[in-house]
């Protein structure tokens, strides 16, 4: 019996519907992505060098990983200055993305687009003033200005091309970037103080989310040292490490009849031999499909919390200090709770700001060349990148003219699709056990999905 449908959900990049079925005292929640992305249809037949501009519609970081895949496809190594510009753009994207998520969370109790006097703040942190929200957006705008300087545009950047970047910076950009880096770092520190005082600290954690955890699951990240992909098990221990070109041998994509977003699973050798191993999958033709509800121990997730779940110390002092505070408050990694996920956003916000101040100096953004010109068209390219939302991966195959014939993209929505299903189910269970009204259930789902 269908009880409730929430459509659409707040803050989700994809159009999403949650349907709750009630049977025999049990609520089963279904998280559905209701529109397809059609990236293969859009990209096949295009010249491969156009993909960074096209695929940025998935998220700004897809622009960067696409350019990296082109470097690989054309067999070129970008000059150091271009690599620094790309990294600087990525850090501006991380800062902007995490800050926006925190803004969404902090404004979740009010209508941020109503007049100050009419907003009210019945449940939110008492110290949260509208001016602080405006200040968040001001620093969001600053990080976006850095992204515009380095990438040309915020949401669909332009500058990353095969072999480097498309243009040099101008003289006045250096000063402005360094100024933005400092402003962002100061604000990230202030944000940390605010969140520790008002949200994370001394039992004043997110109301009703203190014990909100999903079942432990594996996580996938990009290794810091040699760019390999690392799979950590649910205990945070490394279970596999492989080069990114092995991605779709190690990771399988599975369709579901009820969602346009596929599910990503860790491939086991035996998976290819089974048609139904009791995990809810069944074979149609030569592809597996998931039935609702899903249950499979081989799911994994990506994102800020997944990156921290490896338990490795961070290289940047303020971010590491914040990570240590998280460990002191919540215990050692791995974590699978909503509070830890919001805290991970703060850790990475600080890290991004520290990286911005390190990178936004003239010496790092100056050089004799902006790109290495390819001498031939390659036929296969791939790359992986830790985007603000989590690890993403592109693989292209082209014909002799460089026209795209084959494209496979692992986006964070696919990688985290199972996680989103589990979070939604958990939020509904908690909400219904507390006999909350449906409106509160929806709110709980939205807040639990937001930091992942």
């Amino acid at each position: 019996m269908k009880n409730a449908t929430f459509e659409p959900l707040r803050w989700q990049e994809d159009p999403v519907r949650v349907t709750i079925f009630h049977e025999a005292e049990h609520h089963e929640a279904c998280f559905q992505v209701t529109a397809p992305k059609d990236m293969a249809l859009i990209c096949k037949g295009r010249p491969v060098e156009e993909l960074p501009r096209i695929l940025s519609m998935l998220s700004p970081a897809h622009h960067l990983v696409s350019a990296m895949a082109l470097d690989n496809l054309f067999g070129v190594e970008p000059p150091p200055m271009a690599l620094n510009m790309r990294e600087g753009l990525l850090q501006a994207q991380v800062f902007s993305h995490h800050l926006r998520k925190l803004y969404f969370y902090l404004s979740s109790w009010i209508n941020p687009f109503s007049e100050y006097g009419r907003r009210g703040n019945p449940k939110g942190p008492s110290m949260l003033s509208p001016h602080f929200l405006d200040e968040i957006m001001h620093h969001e705008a600053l990080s976006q200005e850095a992204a515009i300087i380095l990438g040309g545009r915020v949401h669909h950047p332009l500058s990353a091309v095969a072999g480097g970047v498309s243009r040099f910076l101008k003289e006045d950009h250096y000063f402005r970037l360094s100024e933005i880096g400092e402003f962002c770092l100061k604000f990230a520190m202030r944000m940390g103080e605010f969140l520790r005082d008002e949200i994370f600290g001394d039992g004043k954690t997110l109301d009703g989310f203190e014990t909100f955890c999903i079942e432990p699951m594996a996580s996938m990240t990009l290794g810091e040292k040699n760019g390999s992909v690392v799979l950590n098990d649910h205990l945070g221990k490394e279970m596999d490490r492989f080069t990114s070109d092995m991605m779709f041998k190690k990771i399988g994509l599975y369709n579901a009849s009820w969602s346009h977003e596929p599910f990503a699973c860790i491939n086991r050798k035996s998976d290819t031999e089974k048609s139904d191993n009791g995990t809810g999958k069944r074979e149609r033709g030569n592809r597996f499909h998931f039935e609702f509800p899903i249950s499979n121990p081989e799911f994994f997730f990506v994102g800020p919390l997944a990156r921290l779940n490896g338990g490795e110390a961070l290289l940047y002092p303020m971010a590491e200090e914040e990570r240590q505070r998280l460990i002191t408050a919540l215990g050692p990694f791995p974590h699978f709770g909503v509070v830890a996920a919001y805290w991970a956003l703060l850790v990475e916000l600080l890290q991004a700001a520290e990286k911005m101040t390190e990178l936004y100096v003239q010496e790092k953004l100056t050089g004799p060349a902006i790109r290495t010109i390819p001498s031939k068209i390659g036929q296969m390219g791939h790359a992986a990148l830790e985007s603000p939302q989590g690890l993403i991966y592109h693989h292209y195959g082209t014909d002799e003219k460089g026209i795209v014939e084959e494209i496979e993209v692992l986006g964070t929505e696919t990688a985290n699709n199972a996680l989103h299903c589990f979070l939604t189910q958990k939020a509904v269970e908690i909400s219904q056990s507390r006999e909350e009204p449906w409106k509160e259930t929806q709110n709980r789902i939205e807040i639990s999905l937001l930091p992942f």
Partner: protein
Amino acid sequence: MGTNTVPNKKLAIFTATGCRACENAILDIHYQVNSLARYADIIFWPYVLGSQWKDLEVQDGLDVCFFSGAIRTVSDREAAVKLREKSRIMVALGACAAFGGLPGLGNLSRSRGPGKPSQPKPDDPEHALEEANPRLSTLEPRVSGLSQIVKVDYFVPGCPPPQNFLWAAIQSLVCEGRAPARLSFSTARLPEAIAQAITSGILPPKGSVFAGEKAVCATCSRVKEEKRFETYKRPYQKYEALGRCLLEQGLLCQGITTMGGCGGLCTAMAQPCRGCFGKVDAIFDPGAKMVSAIASTFDLDDAREIDALVDNFVDLAGTFYRYTLPTQCTLFSTPSKD
């Protein structure tokens, strides 16, 4: 209602199939949008406020709806129709809503449709099972722009729209002359009809496009010397990042056929224009115009040389109609609902 005696305008902001860049572009003018609260109430904004469709049903009507994203599913179509019925003014926001956008490129695929229907047919044995299970909306056979589904009053093109035009649209359609001067961008850089609408409070003519009045070339900062196209290059090849016109260097840049307003943003980044503002009014078909413009500048007589040159060009349809295939390609488009 705000402190003035005029009732606040009721707004809706919605994205069908597309990314969230247009909605995020509205968020990015946060300070100004906050100030707008004195003149407007945002009634329906699922992405930021979590509004549900049932919230809309209790409303008598809306004043302005900013609709972004392309029409890809039956749900998208139903949303467009519902919001059109409720709204006095319907605005196509961004290239996807205005022209079909990048999702529209799916119409080029050999399957002659962007995908399979996702639903089992009623006579399918699985149909009964699906009834008790989660379902998906059926896919449309083709991706469409908003104007091919419902009547659109105004267009704010761009991928995503630049903030000055976005804000100009909000001021002229929502504030109708009541916005304080401190909120205004420089109206001198806006087309005359739009600048007048902002200052006078009279709505711009229906069908107005919140964009420049000339082609991108007119505002591009790159130097045009020979106005000839002597060779053909692809963007991965070597060309001058600064200075000279990209088209003259042999890159397929659509600045000559594309409505301006962006200030030559892509060309300033040494990237060729791909037409996200749509075609200029005087042009019937942007792809045909580009082919004509390029062909007329080559000075070749030898058939083999011409063949060799033509053989170099790749994916002209996907390039010239990158954002506009469903609505501006004569061979593919269907009529608008005007």
